[in-house]
């Protein structure tokens, strides 16, 4: 079963959430990254995510397995968009279920932090001033 997926089209979070329904679940924590109109004080028109798909999927799946092992959770999913996105569109979704809320929060945070740090996906922003560029934050 795949817990991490890339999607080149908008995705439906309610289907992802429904996939995690289980009557042992007491806590469900989720995180969504949305495309903002501003980043680092620059007005953004839209953006594009590019991935090295094969490696992104295997590294993403590794992160999900780490989360399953480190936290007392029941299940977890993460999906990340690729391609062109407009302001307000959903870039990434993480959902985690557990019996108790501590583990759900901790695992949800772990997954989004690791995905942002390790999965080979790159953001290209277009600005209202006409220029554009890749984001390559130095660690």
């Amino acid at each position, binding site marked *: 079963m795949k817990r991490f997926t890339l999607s080149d089209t908008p995705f439906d979070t309610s289907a992802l959430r429904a996939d995690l329904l289980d009557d042992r679940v007491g806590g469900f924590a989720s995180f969504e*990254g949305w495309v903002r109109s501003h980043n680092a004080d620059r007005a953004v028109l839209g953006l594009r995510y590019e991935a090295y798909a094969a*490696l*992104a999927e*295997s590294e993403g799946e590794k992160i999900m397995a780490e989360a399953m092992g480190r936290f007392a959770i029941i299940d977890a999913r993460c999906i*990340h968009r690729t391609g062109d996105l407009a302001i307000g569109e959903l870039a*990434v979704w993480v959902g985690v279920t557990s019996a108790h809320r501590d583990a759900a929060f901790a695992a949800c945070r772990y997954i989004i932090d690791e995905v942002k740090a390790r999965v080979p996906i790159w953001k290209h922003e277009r600005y209202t001033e006409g220029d554009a560029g890749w*984001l*390559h934050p*130095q660690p």
Partner: protein
Amino acid sequence: MGSRVTILYFAALRDAAGMASETVETSAANLRALYEEVQVRHQLPFPARQLRVAIDGDFAGWEDVPREGAEIAFIPPVSGG
């Protein structure tokens, strides 16, 4: 005796190289030396220490050897999420 490898470029590396991939013949002893070759040739904007490197879809080490037929990717700092 060199090895024939395919190199993948992503994001700012692809823009700088002007291509998404190329197949090259290299006699570089390891992936660090291979990156130094292509960095000079394409004027790539990152030193190796800011990158990660992958072979055939798995993260690899800079001292690994470019095997014949390998698909090698230099991974610039990521910005997903």
